[in-house]
């Protein structure tokens, strides 16, 4: 399984589209947003934004990148491998499907790490963001572990969509989760209907893990519960999708 995980990671490092979308995009958007909204926000020093725009967006964009890595490392790849018959070939080799999926989820989570580290490094270099050592470790660690529900969601998409549509489906879900979860702009800027939805979304609760640590508080129990709930739901759906494909 370790070998399979390593193969998966090596493949992704070779995939230019993946690298641009999942690594360059979050960093680019971080720089864009902080420079567009940054001046104004810093001058206004709004009382409800205890983090400040540089730190808040650092966590948001790290989360954005991590979710993207987790989704794109699973969904479109699984769909493509199903289409070309690799999944079928694996089924006649002594490699249990369970291990294939676990290796994929771990590879997806592995690929989330560079996105997190890259955005954080940019924040430090470009805007002089300073946090305590434990905060860096906690943000990195929680954002990393928190990608699990998104990897499971990606696996589900991989079994639901076919090879051609999986990337589009994945990307649509990705953008919707990011925008509605308040990763691009704070939730309070969104229309009020969407403000009510945001706290139920895994993307919002995922970024919240980091926001809370950066603010010096622990993770919200409700937030962790919501994330865990999504993990269970997506994992069950992924398993169901997988079973259905096998039976067919």
């Amino acid at each position, binding site marked *: 399984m370790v070998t399979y995980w390593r193969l998966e990671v090596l493949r992704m490092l070779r995939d230019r589209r993946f690298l641009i979308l999942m690594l360059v995009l979050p960093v680019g958007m971080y720089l864009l947003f902080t420079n567009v909204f940054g001046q104004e926000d810093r001058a206004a020093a709004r009382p409800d934004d205890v983090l400040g725009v540089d730190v808040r967006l650092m966590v948001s964009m790290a989360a954005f990148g991590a979710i993207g890595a987790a989704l794109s490392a699973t969904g479109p790849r699984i769909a493509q491998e199903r289409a070309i*018959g690799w999944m079928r070939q694996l089924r*006649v080799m*002594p490699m249990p499907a369970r291990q294939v999926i676990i290796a994929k989820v771990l590879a997806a989570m592995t690929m989330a790490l560079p996105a997190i580290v890259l955005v954080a490094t940019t924040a430090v270099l470009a805007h002089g963001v300073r946090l305590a050592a434990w905060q860096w470790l906690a943000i990195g660690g929680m954002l990393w572990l928190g990608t699990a529900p998104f990897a499971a969601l990606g696996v589900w998409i991989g079994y639901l969509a076919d090879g051609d549509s999986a990337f589009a489906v994945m990307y649509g879900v990705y953008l919707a989760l990011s925008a509605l979860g308040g990763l691009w702009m704070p939730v309070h800027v969104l229309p009020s209907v969407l403000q009510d939805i945001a706290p139920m979304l895994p993307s919002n609760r995922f970024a919240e893990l980091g926001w809370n640590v950066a603010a010096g508080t622990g993770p919200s129990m409700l937030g962790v519960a919501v994330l865990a709930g999504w993990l269970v739901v997506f994992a069950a759906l992924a398993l169901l999708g997988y079973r259905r494909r096998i039976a067919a």
Partner: protein
Amino acid sequence: MTDIAVWFESVTKSFGTVRAVNGLDLRIRVGETVALLGANGAGKSTTVNLLLGLFPPDGGRVRVLDSAPRQAVAQGRIGAMLQEGGLMPGVTVQALLGFARERYPDPLPLAEVLDQTGLTEVADRYVDRLSGGQTQRLRFALAIVGDPELLVLDEPTAAMDVESRRAFWVNMRAYAAKGRTVLFATHYLDEADENADRIVVVAEGGVVADGTPAEIKSAAGGRSVRFTVDGSGAGDLHLLPGVTSVEVRGRTATLHTADAERTVRALFASRDRVRDIEVTGADLEDAVLALTS
């Protein structure tokens, strides 16, 4: 431990209203090389997929190497080249085979597999950069890398050119010569004839004939002799020994014969020259027709 490698007992499998396999009985002994011969839709692929446990039978029993099919696969005792099987993209030939090797309890050395399948020179190439022939060879390499007791090949030469096809069968026979059991599905009588000890003809999901290639061919009835008709005309052709029917289209005559050797001998004796002569085996369609009627 029995010496039966593959055992199908009144197996049935339907997809919707289509009964793909219909009461199939089949026993293959350890060490045999068996061709599963049948037209498209005869139930070959379904049989192969049942053998690999890719889906369970609706009725009857499938045993492979004294185990349930999935167990035999999980233990690495079967190697398979599927019709719809694909390769992991984005990795090198070597990396892919290296991964596969680790999954089997007693694999072949990597260098030996690369050498045998002619992939040594492209070992560092990415899987998605291989030619069609190389891809097929890699799929075969993936099937044998674990040195499995049973090798299952579903229409392995379907996408190959003549040269790759020949090389492929040489490799397959080399593998079978090690005492391994091989089952391959094909719709070419020639391939079955040249590469199997035993041919099992399937039609409509059941076995319609089972025997050595010689037995099957004689049961399938005869060969065709084709040549260009010259001055002597075609009027006497039906009188030649062995001939069962005569067809003349333009200047080409086709004789169906139960004894090609005697027919050809008499044909040469009756004419000064016989141009463009060609002797071909009965094709599968004829064979299946002859065997089922």
